[in-house]
């Protein structure tokens, strides 16, 4: 195959779902023997496009050509036959099957009527050896970690003789050294003439691996760049993805009022083993003030949040305005006007199997618009969910789909929208924009800033130090359950803050 031949060409692809257009007029050319990245925000239509290319969904319009031949895919089998293989974002593996069973499923070697295990084992070890993908084919997948599972997914694809590989957000679940291993594998594959389509929204990674990058925005292709010949930065790509200049989390002006909203005195949380996880923490937040807590994860942040919400028992005193709420229930605290964006959204903030409008009620089920006296008010909740979906740009076909159907970023937008509803006086927020793409991130920052302007007090915990520094009026550094330093967001740099978080030095 020559270097310049086109492995995949998509022309004028359209895909409509009830209520949304997932893809509109997508045009894409992938040269064979290259790594071609497709980047775009959550919900921009990348995954839908790949499902179309893999035959899992049918395009409403458009032409798919593989190696110059126009083809129609009615099922993944057709795509597999055309030499296309897909590594899904959520692994498609049966946990109770062995590695071997997972790999051969659907195209099993047979002798007579029987499965030929010996031949399968040989085939797999040959492919694994050729591509440096070491696996033990007889262990159960349930015993394997994420990196191994991904290798199995790649083997599955190679086993089927694919020469075009689609990887849907392959690095989302990997730790850094696993990402490096994956990239080495991909470079090897490229050398052997495989074509790789790489979907991601992590721009640094894309720039390090891709030979060509295509940007998708709101369901359509907006441009391609070649990182080898053109000088592109992650920032330029991000602006192409968002379609406007990239926002920064800067809070401007001083909106701090006199009234103290939250007073915490000598808060302590004891772990099951008797060790103090939170050890005598005190602080005050005034109306219109954003207090940031910086710290490496696991230094007591989660416990402080849970103690403030009354989820975890704690010692010390928590005052909301003039009222001592140390012994009050979570329900009572929420009714006072405390919004809560927890660290683990799927575990603490959502019912994945329930529709969006029911999730809208969650935690606010006693108040309008979700309730009328004793009775719930589904109509009010639905109407308000529509408002949140519109205001916070939650990409969803309808408010009746289950929360599990939304991407992580969109789930987060829904949660932020919910917690900002009903004019809270205090917002306790952990990583409010984690997993959210750049465009939506800016929108969430705007909402928080506007509420601050109107007098909202915010306790902010974030691993994103730019966000923490940009939004906060003041920052405290948490280390092993204690505040060890204060930092002034106007002068501190992320590097200084990072040093303070590890206890190595003192911030400005």
């Amino acid at each position: 195959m020559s270097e310049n031949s086109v492995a995949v060409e998509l022309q004028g692809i359209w895909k409509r779902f009830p209520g949304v257009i997932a893809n509109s007029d997508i045009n894409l050319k992938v040269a064979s023997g290259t790594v071609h990245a497709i980047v775009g925000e959550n919900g921009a239509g990348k995954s839908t496009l790949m499902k179309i290319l893999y035959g899992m969904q049918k395009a409403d319009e458009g032409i798919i050509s593989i190696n110059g031949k126009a083809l129609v895919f009615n099922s993944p089998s057709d795509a597999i036959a055309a030499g296309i293989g897909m590594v899904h974002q959520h692994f498609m593996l049966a946990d109770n099957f062995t590695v071997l069973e997972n790999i051969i499923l659907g195209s099993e070697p047979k002798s007579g009527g029987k499965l030929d295990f010996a031949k399968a084992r040989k085939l797999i070890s040959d492919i694994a050896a050729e591509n440096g993908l070491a696996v033990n084919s007889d262990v159960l997948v349930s015993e394997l970690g994420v990196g191994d599972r991904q290798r199995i997914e790649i083997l599955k694809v190679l086993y089927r003789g694919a020469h075009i590989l689609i990887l849907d957000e392959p690095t989302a679940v990997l730790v850094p050294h696993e990402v490096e291993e994956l990239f080495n594998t991909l470079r090897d594959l490229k050398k052997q003439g495989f074509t790789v389509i790489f979907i991601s929204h992590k721009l640094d990674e894309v720039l390090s691996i891709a030979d060509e990058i295509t940007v998708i925005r709101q369901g359509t292709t907006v441009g391609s760049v070649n990182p080898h010949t053109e000088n592109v930065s992650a920032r330029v790509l991000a602006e192409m993805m968002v379609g406007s200049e990239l926002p920064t989390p800067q809070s401007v002006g001083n909106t701090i009022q006199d009234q103290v909203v939250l007073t915490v005195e000598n808060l302590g949380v004891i772990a099951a083993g008797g060790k103090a996880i939170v050890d005598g923490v005190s602080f005050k937040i005034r109306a219109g003030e954003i207090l940031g807590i910086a710290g490496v994860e696991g230094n007591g942040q989660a416990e402080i949040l849970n103690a403030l919400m009354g989820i975890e028992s704690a010692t010390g005193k928590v005052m909301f305005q003039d009222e001592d709420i140390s012994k009050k229930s979570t329900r009572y605290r929420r009714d006072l006007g405390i919004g809560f964006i927890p660290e683990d959204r799927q575990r603490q903030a959502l019912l994945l199997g329930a529709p969006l409008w029911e999730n809208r009620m969650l935690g606010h089920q006693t108040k309008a618009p979700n309730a009328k006296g004793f009775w719930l008010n589904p109509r009010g909740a639905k109407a308000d969910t529509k408002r949140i979906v519109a205001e916070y740009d939650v990409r969803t076909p309808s408010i009746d789909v289950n929360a599990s159907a939304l991407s992580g970023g969109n789930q987060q937008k829904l949660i932020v929208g919910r917690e900002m509803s009903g004019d809270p006086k205090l917002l306790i927020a952990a990583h409010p924009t984690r997993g959210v793409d750049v465009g939506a991130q800016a929108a969430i920052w705007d909402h928080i800033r506007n509420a601050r302007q109107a007098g909202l007090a915010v306790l902010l915990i974030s691993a994103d130090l730019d966000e923490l520094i940009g939004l906060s009026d003041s920052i405290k550094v948490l280390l092993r359950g204690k505040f060890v330093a204060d930092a002034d967001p106007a002068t501190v740099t992320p590097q200084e803050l990072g040093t303070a978080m590890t206890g190595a030095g003192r911030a400005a």
Partner: protein
Amino acid sequence: MTYLKSHRFIGSAFTAITMLSITRTITSNGDLTSTVTIAQALVFASPIALAGLAGIWAERAGVINIGLEGMMILGTFGAGWAGWQWGAWAGVLAGIIFGAIGGLLLAVAAVTFGVDQIIAGTAINLLALGTTKFLAILLFTNAPGGGQAQSPPIKGKIPVFTLDSIVEPLTALHEKGIFFVSDLAGLVAGLFYNMSLLTIITLLLFIMTSYLLWKTAFGLRLRSAGENPWAADSLGVKVVQYKYAAVVFSGMLAGLGGAYLSIASTIYRNGNTAGRGYIGLATMIFGDWRPGGTAAGAIMFGYIDTLRLIDTGNQNVKGLILLGAIILFTIGAWMLRSSRRNTAIGFLLLGAVMIGAYFSATSFPPEVAQVAPYITTLLVLATASQNLRPPAADGVPYRKGEDH
């Protein structure tokens, strides 16, 4: 890997016979391992085993089949209705077909329409019960030898084999009462005494299932529908077709189990299944969704049932209590070694209570034996549940193209 490993099989058979033998020696109750007991236990075990096997087929493809009881009822009725008119083999065939109809109904509800599988199965149970009662009144009331709740006798017989040349010397050996040897003789003789062709077919179906589901591409695909149908779909496996095939075949097996019951009692009678479909489900769980373990579970149920029913001197149930205590002690001792102390102590205590009961009471009501298999299943579930591997997507509705 999935086949019974032969050394393990021989090991557990050896242990089981030893424990039976100890019990038989202490109680001096020859019935426990006699030729007749074993032969009858197989007759009682077979319908349960077929129900369990039916459960394996459906659940391996990811469809929970609570409707087994109903499909068995349909089988008993089909066998009675056709058997009375056209003979026993026609009865078997009709039982299978009626069961298949039940299976098809479940497949349509659960696979095509995604109805909650427990509810769909329960509906089939109720429907089968009502329909067969109604049809019995309609078809059997005025038939010669029939009644409102039972069919006329089934014509003809399914062949039954007895190999005298094996049975007679072994039975004689059994009566000598030698430790282990006599018990083994009784057990082996039981396999050649009044062995029904249907029992042999049941055994062959178990072997066929082990082979088909674990050694062929067909089986791998069918099981993938129960483990991760979305993954299977992404590899071009036609998940819905496999689910349909599995559930309909499940219905056929359950129907055959029902037919076995009617033929064994020579008529169809309302309520003849007496919950054996549910017991079949229990044996399937007991057997970790595998044929070998399921067969063992069914034999346990059949054996206990037999001892309860042929209990002439009121001593069999007492023997069972002792056997249970010995089993508990053995497992408890084994667990102590593998450092699962709390569970082990629980087992030993329970064993001690049973020993106490054995020596303090002269006889036990037969109901004690009736609940024994269920208690055993509960014990298995309580202690082995971490090691059980039900299909990962068992009971989860699947819709093509939908994310999970």
